[in-house]
């Protein structure tokens, strides 16, 4: 059985079974098929995926990822960070192809915890993220048709923003997110932690207060 036919079987199975009472045997079979398919790297383009209508393909993703990381490794700011963090570049490029395939083609191939991975990297700053985005923007426009490039760039920007907030929350809490988030805006905004009520981490209350603070941050960085 090919991967493509496995995906098709799963789609019909799960659609036809929705809402219908199942025997435990049928439910088990469906669950096993779902589990099998979830790790099977489906190759059929999903018509609902944002990249499908824009003509994004796996080979295009491969070209983008390969060229982007070629430039990253030559970049004065990013090169040393990646070379210190990546042990096996072939493996890393494969994971990045899976990641972008999951994001723009909804292939489900990548499963990971990128916030935690990035939170463990020492010394990551907003400047690193800005340079990463600038290089990715440039590469996407060089490698992809215009509309496809726009989708990649849009998603990269959103993901970079979420990663930075996630890293800040993991490593230092809401105060660091406050310090980082203005750097993500197109134009600098006067937002300093000392000017914000409740931003002093020494006086911060229980987790609910911090969560509310982070929720407000998310609204502010939009």
């Amino acid at each position, binding site marked *: 059985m090919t991967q493509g036919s496995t995906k098709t079987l799963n789609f019909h199975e799960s659609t036809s079974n929705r809402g219908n009472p199942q025997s435990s045997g049928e439910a088990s079979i469906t*669950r096993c098929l779902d589990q099998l398919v979830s790790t099977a790297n489906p190759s059929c383009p999903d018509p609902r995926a944002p990249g499908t209508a824009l003509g994004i393909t796996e080979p295009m993703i491969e070209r983008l990822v390969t060229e982007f990381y070629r430039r990253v490794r030559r970049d004065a700011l990013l090169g040393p960070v990646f070379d210190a963090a990546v042990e096996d570049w072939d493996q890393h490029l494969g994971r990045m192809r899976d*990641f972008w395939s*999951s994001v723009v083609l909804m292939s489900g191939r990548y499963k990971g915890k990128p916030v935690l991975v990035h939170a463990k990297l020492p010394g990551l700053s907003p400047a690193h993220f800005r340079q990463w985005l600038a290089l990715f923007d440039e590469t996407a426009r060089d490698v992809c048709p215009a509309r496809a490039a726009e989708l990649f760039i849009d998603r990269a920007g*959103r*993901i970079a923003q979420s990663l930075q907030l996630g890293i800040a929350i993991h490593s230092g809490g809401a105060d660091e997110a406050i310090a980082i988030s203005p750097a993500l805006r197109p134009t600098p905004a006067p937002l300093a932690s000392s000017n914000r009520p409740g931003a002093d981490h020494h006086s911060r209350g229980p987790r609910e207060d911090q969560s509310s603070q982070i*929720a407000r941050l*998310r609204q502010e960085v*939009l």
Partner: protein
Amino acid sequence: MTYVVTENCIKCKYTDCVEVCPVDCFYEGENMLVINPDECIDCGVCVPECPAEAIFADSEPQATEQWLEVNRKYSNLWPNIPIKKAALPDADAENGRAGKAAELSPNPAKEEVIP
């Protein structure tokens, strides 16, 4: 920014979102899923995948403070769900029914033994 699971997931729990989420940020209650806002990377692939159309960006009006709080709170209490499973038995009948918010179960998903 994050995406937020809202009312119409309750008593449906199709779990299609789980299959496409690249960062496994869905958590499973007895009759609803939620997204951990600290783990979501804002890629948005779960949105078109939800048959109940229950997932919204936190910037959209459907993602009210009530649902932001439900996602925030329960993603710290319920178990992670990394793999799609069968929808709840009455999912299609429950899809779109009004007034489900009051029926949200605070209980975590029951552990299942996969044969």
